[in-house]
């Protein structure tokens, strides 16, 4: 059998995975470009192959195939992206099965992870702590009336299929109906673009226009929880769960309250975070991540974004990422099964051909 990776040539992810395979004495995996999958080309997958599905990455060609042609810096097109992506995943899975190959992972789980609404619902149903969500919001009017009904003052409005901070709006309301939106998207001529600067919109007219531009691609709205701060920086955690075990963790910090909105966020000191939450708190944090990962039992690896509440006592899962392992040179937690290994080496160790 041989290993096949679906990814983007030239991207760091397949290169790091291939390097991990080579150092484990495995042959270099065959790379099937996402663009081939998206174009519907016949796939070079054979009986006995094990197929790892990785991210299409930031490839412009793949992006154009997924979202349709246009400025790659634009925000939006998420609904089309999702339709194309999930259709391609399903074809990939069907062709691999037909050829007698095995997909490492579960394409239906990947599909859920790329829609924040069912992903949130699945975590909540399993009792995993998540920020409260306001479901069924299709535009600005619905957003404000649902916020009013439920007494929510601050919410995150996220594109249902967005990745990282793209198009995320941190929305606050204040007494008297004042509204303020902070986002890394900038409105230019009735279109939204990703911007390097986080900026704010303060008039109802602008905020309504902003939400109106995002809504057609689907919105996931959830309560904006205050984050914990250490040394004057707020932080959250990315915890990689491999084979059910939380193996790798990084602290992501920011000077602004919106860690994942701030594009200049930096890695923080994990030791300091562990000391601040205490050994018991740290165990609970990892347990929450393991439970979140267990909602996706067919996925050999997920990256859990874990919010630590302002009192350092509460945890909430913001997101579970199907391709959340791009953390170069980060080695596994001491005492854990991936101690000394990066996220890729840890996954190679669990491949059916190495066990």
């Amino acid at each position, binding site marked *: 059998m041989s290993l096949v990776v679906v990814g983007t040539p030239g991207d760091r992810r397949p290169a790091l995975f291939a390097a991990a395979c080579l150092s484990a004495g495995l042959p270099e995996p065959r790379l099937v470009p996402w663009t081939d999958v998206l174009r519907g080309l016949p796939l070079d997958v054979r009986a006995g192959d094990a197929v790892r599905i990785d991210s299409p990455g930031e490839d412009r060609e793949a992006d154009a195939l997924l979202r349709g042609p246009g400025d790659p810096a634009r925000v939006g097109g998420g609904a089309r992206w999702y339709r194309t992506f999930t259709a391609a995943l399903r074809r990939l899975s069907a062709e691999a099965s037909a050829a007698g190959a095995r997909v490492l992972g579960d394409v239906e789980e990947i599909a859920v992870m790329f829609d924040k609404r069912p992903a949130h619902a699945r975590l909540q149903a399993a009792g995993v702590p998540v920020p409260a969500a306001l479901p069924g919001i299709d535009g600005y009017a619905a957003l404000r009336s649902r916020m009013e009904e439920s007494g929510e003052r601050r919410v995150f409005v996220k594109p249902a299929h967005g990745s990282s901070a793209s198009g995320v709006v941190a929305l606050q309301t204040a007494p*008297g109906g004042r509204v303020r939106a902070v986002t890394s998207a900038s409105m230019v001529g009735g279109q939204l673009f990703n911007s390097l600067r986080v900026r704010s919109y303060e008039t109802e007219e602008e905020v309504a226009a902003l939400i109106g531009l995002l809504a057609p691609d689907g919105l996931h709205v959830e309560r904006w929880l205050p984050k914990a701060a250490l040394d004057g920086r707020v932080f959250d955690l990315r915890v990689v769960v491999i084979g059910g075990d939380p193996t790798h963790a990084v602290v992501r910090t920011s000077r602004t309250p919106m860690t994942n909105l701030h594009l200049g966020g930096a890695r923080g000191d994990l030791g300091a975070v562990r000391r601040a939450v205490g050994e018991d708190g740290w165990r609970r944090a990892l347990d929450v991540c393991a439970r979140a990962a267990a909602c996706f039992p067919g996925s050999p690896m997920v990256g859990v974004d874990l919010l630590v509440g302002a009192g350092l006592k509460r945890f909430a899962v913001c997101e579970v990422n199907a391709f959340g392992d791009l953390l170069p040179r980060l080695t596994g937690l001491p005492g854990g099964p991936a101690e000394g290994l990066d996220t890729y080496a840890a996954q190679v160790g669990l491949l059916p051909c190495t066990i």
Partner: protein
Amino acid sequence: MNDERLSTFAGLPVHAFDGDPEGGPHPAPGEAAWGIYHHVHDNGVWGAEVPENFDRFLREVDTTQVTHLVIGFWGFDCREFDPVERLVAAAGRLPRLRALFLGDIRDWDLHLSWIKHTDVSPLFEAFPDLAHFEVRGSEGLRFAPLAGAAGARLRTLRFEAAMLPPEIVRSVVDSDLPGLRHLDLWMGGAPMDGPALLDGLAPILAGERLPALRRLGLENAARHDRIAEAVADAPVVARLESLSLALGTLTDAGAEALLSGRPLGHLAELDLHHHYLTEEMGARVRDALPGVRVNLDDPQGRPEWLKPEWRQFDFEMSGSYIAVAE
């Protein structure tokens, strides 16, 4: 970054009056600084907010005994709740108010540069004992020069800003503050550059109209080396017990200027925390000022692309950042 609320204010512990049903019993009205805040439950649900809590405070507390008051996050602007207007309207209920902090607003509530104010001048007429005034945020802020009794009773004046308007500095300079002991100005990335900034501060540094000043803070400043050079030659320093150039961008050049200027050995405290000094310079400052409590906490390391030749320009470029810029 302001990520905690005040625990004490002007010598009294802050008691949060935030509508939290589990907030515990209230202290005696005259024995705490009353913090009017909003409450967010652990799970993120918002409880009562400042406008509502301010009214409850007036209803439920014997405010005639209250001397210290702190106002928290009241909203994005002052259209629905203008704290100055509300305080002035309630002045009859707060006859003993001596100390006021306007805007104990955490970065999470609203970044410093986003906090909006109105004209705070009416407060100084409305409260006949007001001797201690601090305000966080400067957008829309107006402050008319103080004179007469209002200026004479003032002991502490603090402005926290990400970009302090030159008009505020001018009003401070133009005020009669014969009893002022404590003055802090967060300069921020001031719109005044080099010469204009220093011209604006010159009367404060000369100190002629501030005979009682014992503490001067010129903090959170993007031009700290320039300020340090001016402070090094400032007559006012001789009467200070505490000098602060903290929260800013001080480098070895600024520290060198301080060490080679007028004597600082009489100070009880020199606060330089959040700085860009090298360890060697930090040690030199400590060695040169053995009897002074020197605060060199929170070193920021070396600004990555700071080059000395850039300092000669008035539009200084540097890789250094003030503590609270947003």
